[in-house]
């Protein structure tokens, strides 16, 4: 028998998760239920987080946004301010699965499922987003890249869960983008994903850049050298080539059914370049 809990507060949820080692939090369930059905996980308790009011919806926070962890991906599309500020993040979250899946699936779930190929994660890392983690010891704010530990594993302690995804205030002349490579056009998992967020000054010179990659290492990567290669440049082809070199150097993928080392490495560089151009045009359009 599986115990099913619907706590009304963050504290209750944390206590329930802490009480049972195999307990799993549930929001959209698009990963958890599939894993349970296939026998990959057999939790003794499920803690449904959707009934906690703060877990749902998008709020202004510190000039940016706080997105409740149980907010489904398609709900992000309805928030005009969020879409205008962080289009790359919203797009990434809305590449996951199908429309039906995204009506349930959440970014926080995508993050805590800890797949290296999670679409929303590189976009969130590029955007310098943070996760509000709630647990028996209280709250802490953690950079997105520090949540996944390895494929299928997080750095969250027993009883901890992600309550919010926090996106910073967007620079007036900033832009972001996320692209992924899949063999089909949808209903697929990233062979490689690349998220880019950058800020331009009035002359078009890049003053800040973050480049993040998915599916090329055990966890999504922030490639600081790649961002550094763009900063101080006008995003000319040579700068993008240097950025692409840094991306390739950071790739440490595996050969598997979804792609080879060579293909993943080559695509990471190509997608990072293409995403940079989209982010650039968005930043330019904003400035």
């Amino acid at each position, binding site marked *: 028998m599986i115990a099913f809990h619907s706590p009304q507060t963050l504290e209750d949820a944390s206590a329930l998760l802490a009480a049972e080692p195999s307990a799993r939090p549930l929001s959209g369930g698009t990963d958890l239920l599939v894993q349970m059905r*296939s026998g990959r996980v057999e939790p003794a308790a499920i803690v449904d987080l959707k009934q906690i009011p703060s877990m749902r919806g998008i709020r202004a926070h510190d000039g940016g946004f706080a997105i409740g962890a149980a907010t489904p991906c398609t709900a992000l599309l309805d928030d005009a301010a969020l879409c205008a500020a962080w289009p790359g993040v919203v797009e990434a979250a809305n590449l996951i699965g199908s429309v039906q899946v995204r009506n349930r699936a959440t970014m926080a779930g995508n993050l805590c499922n800890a797949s290296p190929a999670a679409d929303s994660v590189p976009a969130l890392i590029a955007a310098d987003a943070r996760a509000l983690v709630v647990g028996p010891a209280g709250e802490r704010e953690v950079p997105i890249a520090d949540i996944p530990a390895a494929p299928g594993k997080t750095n969250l302690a027993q009883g901890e869960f992600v309550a919010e995804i926090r996106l910073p205030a967007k620079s007036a002349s900033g832009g972001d983008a996320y692209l992924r*490579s899949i*063999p*089909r*056009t*949808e*209903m*697929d*998992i990233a*062979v490689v994903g690349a998220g880019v967020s950058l800020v331009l000054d009035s002359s078009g010179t890049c003053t800040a850049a973050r480049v993040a990659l998915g599916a090329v290492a055990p966890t999504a990567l922030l490639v600081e050298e790649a961002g550094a290669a763009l900063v101080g440049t006008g995003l000319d082809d040579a700068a993008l080539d240097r950025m692409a070199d840094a991306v390739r150097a950071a790739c440490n993928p595996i050969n*598997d*059914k*979804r*792609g*080879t080392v*060579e*293909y993943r490495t*080559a*695509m990471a560089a*190509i997608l990072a370049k293409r995403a940079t151009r989209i982010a650039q045009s968005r930043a330019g359009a904003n400035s």
Partner: protein
Amino acid sequence: MTEHNPLSQFRVVGTRPVRPDGIDKVTGKAIYGPDHVAPGMIHGAILRSPHPHARIRSIDTSKALALPGVKAAVTGQDLPHLPGKSVSLGEGEADLANLSCNCLARDKALYEGHAVAAVAATSASIAREALKLITVDYEVLPHVIDLEDAARDDAPILHPDLRTQGAEEPSDKPTNIAFTFALKQGDAAKALDGAAAVASGRFAMPPVHQGYIEPHACVASWNADGQGQVWCSSQGPFMVRAVTAGVLDIPVSDVRVTPLEIGGGFGGKTTIYLEPVAMLLSRKAGRPVRLAMSREDVFRASGPAPGLVVDIRIGADAEGNLVGIEADMLYDAGAFPGGGTMLGPLVLSNMYRYPAVDIRTRDAVSNKPSVAAYRAPAAPQITFAIESCIDDIAAQLGMDPIAFRLKNALRPGDTSAMGMECGEIGFVECLDSANAQDHLKAPLGDNEGRGIAAGYWINIGGASSASVSLAEDGSVAVVTGNPDIGGSRASMAIMASERLGVPYEKVRPIIGDTATIGYSVVTGGSRTTFAVGRAVVQACDTIIADMKKRAANVWQVAEDDVEWRNGAVHCTAKGNDNAPMTITEMAENANTTGGPIAAEVSINPHDSLPAYGVHICDVAVDPETGHVSIKRYTVVQDVGRAIHPDYVEGQMQGGAVQGIGWALNEAYIYNSKGCLDNPGFLDYRMPVASDLPMIDTVIVEKPNPAHPYGVKGVGEVPIVPPLAAIGNAVKAATGKRIRELPMSPDRVFAAINGGK
């Protein structure tokens, strides 16, 4: 929705009425394989081998049987041993020993997912728990997955008793090569060495799955009196009856099979996996038992289409006449013999005129699931190689690819290299029609390319039964024994309506069980509208003759003075003013003119005609990523006559889409342990809607004289050309000839960047 073409010689044939089974299907009322419930039914589950190749030393089910709720457990030892026995399925023979071993392994597990034991319990979850309590003592053996490795002399041997059938020099050495066949006419090597243009190469493609949405499932009930019943979806209840009775070694009359609605088959449901096991469980448990596969089971343990490796060489003289072909084909049979070996040469020889032929075909067993039919079995694979080469030769000669094909295409009156005489085939008409399509003139953008390719499929006839009976009000019941996998209910109703002169809506097409209608072979081979349709029309003709006889009696005139026209009998005797009697009046008065009006007809026609198709495909190739996207696609096909054009077009589109998936992304991927790495629709990548443009269709009608309305059969040939049509389009876009499938982004990327 019914439209009528005033120029048509037919009233209903060629129109598009709503399908009789449509409402049930869109409202969820239709009962598919996993839906059927029998009173008192319990739930079965199957334990499957985690090893691709292992000897089964022993199986202990005692702990499973001790679990409360578990009612029965069976292993391969519960099935009769049937070495050398086979059963005729009309389309071919089925080896019962192999079928039995595929349902439940006997001595060895031959692939990952091979069924080794089964239980039945009062709930599905208890049955699953019980599987964990079964102990199997395996001796793991070396395995072989790769087709060419399997054919090597030093390969791990799957079946110690297997010897190559058809070998010129029989050997007593164990082998994995199950079958070989060679055909030589003229001196192909010499002809090719002297040819003006030659294309050659090694083409290779892995197994692919049919990908039907509905998993295999059945309910079986085997009573203490020996009478058994099976409810299942399949492509033929008589096939299920024959093999279930055969594997259990019981009289055919002890098994009654009721067909349920089928959620896709594409050839994959012309065999069985579960039914004898469910019967055994039912007998032991004394209750009806349901067995249903999961999606993973379907991928791991039901038949994919065989992979193929072929070395091929084709050449032409400077005028564009083909001079010869050499081909050495190796088809993948999976765990048991039967890789469709003879079908490769059949397809190869039935497209073009070759003065010289030197071909060999073999099939090899390997530690993968036993292959099954998939829409024009064996044809897409070899046609990929042929039509790629044909395109390359045309390019070398500077000839238009359609003109080159027209110059060499088989025509009525020709005899193919396999000795088949070409009747009223429509290959030339398809090529002419393709040549006239606007699609060919549409401009192409950067990194885009256009490819064309042709395809052939034999189409079959075969044993078919149909009954037609009039109800008291003149409505009509048409019963056949063939599951409707492509709109055949609508086609049967249209043909009966046309023949009898009654409205389409008054005809009820029913699919009977094995006790309600005469024997019929499977819905397969693109045969149903041709052969079963002919039986329906003959049954209509039989009751028309009966009604004419009755009218002659009523009118007291000679039978020759009664004519059937527009759904009524008319008296043509001179000086006679008898008013015509409609079919409704005849039905109303049946009991005063001789009793019920009904007829059943069983036939076995073998004068079916092959289908040909020509596909035109535009692709765009992303030169940086290797992604191929289909921009435009046209299917041209000779169908003989389209009875219900919607379902003819649906077959043409569906076949093309399955071929597109095969070409671009579908493949069985095995890991180093010999286990299937992608047993689900996430990583076994069939196309999704957004991957495809609208598939345009052009129906060519060159009627088949052997069918009352000219039907040739449409369901299979549309999957044949897409692999080469896309390969040719990719070559046009990139300059690279890709000879391995699938043409996935990484493979195209490697080709563009100078890889192989």
